[in-house]
Structures are given as C-alpha cells and as structure tokens.
C-alpha cells in the first residue's frame, strides 16, 4: 500500500543554519506530495505541495522538489529562524485518491 517515510524524529539546529527534512514515499500511482507545518497547540497547516516531477516549489522561505526517480520530496530552507520551530509532516495523496496519508512527522527545534 501507499506509505510515507520521515526518518528524523527530531532535528535540532542553530538559528541561521540550513535544514533539510527527509521525506520518501511509496506508491504505484501518480503521487501528489504535501508538507504541513504544525506549531505548538495549533492545527497542521499546508506549507507546500507538488505533483510535478523535478520542479521546485517554494513558500515562506521553504522549498522542495518532487523527484519521482527517487520517490523523494525533501523539505529545505537555507537559513532557519527561531519561529520555524514546529512539527513538520510530509503527506502523500496517490493518484486521484480521496485522502492523504501522513508520515510520522519531524520535530524541528531551532536554538539561538
């Protein structure tokens, strides 16, 4: 079945450094990938989405590129801020599927 893998449970970084959060997926259908951000005591909110192979998508300083050849959709930012501390989820909607399947999430902790 469809699945999403996020390998890092917790990433701790100093403010100003770059970050990459890993996301790989498995599906036999055409994938639509999403990144959500969830700040403490809030609901998850959509950060990025893509279904186009090898095209970079950006929002709020974060960016990701869907690579179908490697089944990956890693989230990156060139310089993290304290306000980026949050839980980040990668999600997959396969083909014209009716729901999204989420990864286990990566907690990003940015320290001064």
């Amino acid at each position: 079945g469809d699945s999403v893998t996020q390998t890092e449970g917790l990433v701790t970084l100093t403010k100003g450094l770059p970050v990459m959060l890993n996301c790989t997926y498995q599906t036999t259908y055409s994938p639509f990938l999403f990144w959500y951000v969830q700040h403490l005591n809030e609901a998850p909110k959509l950060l990025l989405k893509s279904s186009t192979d090898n095209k970079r998508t950006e929002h709020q300083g974060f960016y990701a590129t869907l690579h179908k050849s490697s089944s990956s959709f890693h989230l990156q930012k060139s310089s993290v801020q304290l306000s980026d501390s949050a839980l980040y989820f990668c999600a997959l909607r396969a083909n014209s599927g009716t729901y999204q399947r989420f990864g286990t999430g990566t907690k990003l902790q940015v320290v001064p």
Partner: protein
Amino acid sequence: EAAVTQSPRNKVTVTGGNVTLSCRQTNSHNYMYWYRQDTGHGLRLIHYSYGAGNLQIGDVPDGYKATRTTQEDFFLLLELASPSQTSLYFCASSERGLVFFGKGTRLTVV
C-alpha cells in the same frame, strides 16, 4: 480560508465510557476526515466521508464509529472508550485536494 470547528476542545472520560466528538465545516466541502495524532505515529486516518450519509473506513478504525449527518457535520463516536484511545483528534475537510484542519480535540481516557 476554510473553517473547521471541533468540539469539545478537551475531554476526559473513564474507561468504558461513551464519547462523541463533533466537527462542523462551513465551506460545503464534500470530504471530511477524522485523524488521530500520536507521537511517533504522526496523523492516522480513522474514518472519512464524502457526503451526508456516507462513511468510509480509514487505516485505524477499530473502536471508532462515525456518522456524517449533513454536509457540514461529522461526528466521531467512541462507545466503549479505552486508555489506548487517549490522543489528539483532528477533524479536517477537503476540496480539490487541499485539506483544512480543525484545532483538535484532546481526549484523555482514564
């Protein structure tokens, strides 16, 4: 932005008790979902619906029932609550693939 409202926001119940979590969306989205969020497991789909009277089973349905009474209202029912159902529950609605979440209900089963 789509509005999804959950109630209650917090609930404590005893083992074996009955609990109903409510969700209302005001954007006439066809799809509505119930997820539970647990550390190390992420968001897991319990049930979902694509319209009033419709119900589809998600990935972790055991111990849960759901009912979609109107386009706007989707309920999650725990008829014999167990401590393993202690979790943060999110309702969401979706249209054209974009998902909007409510603020969540924290349920504790003691």
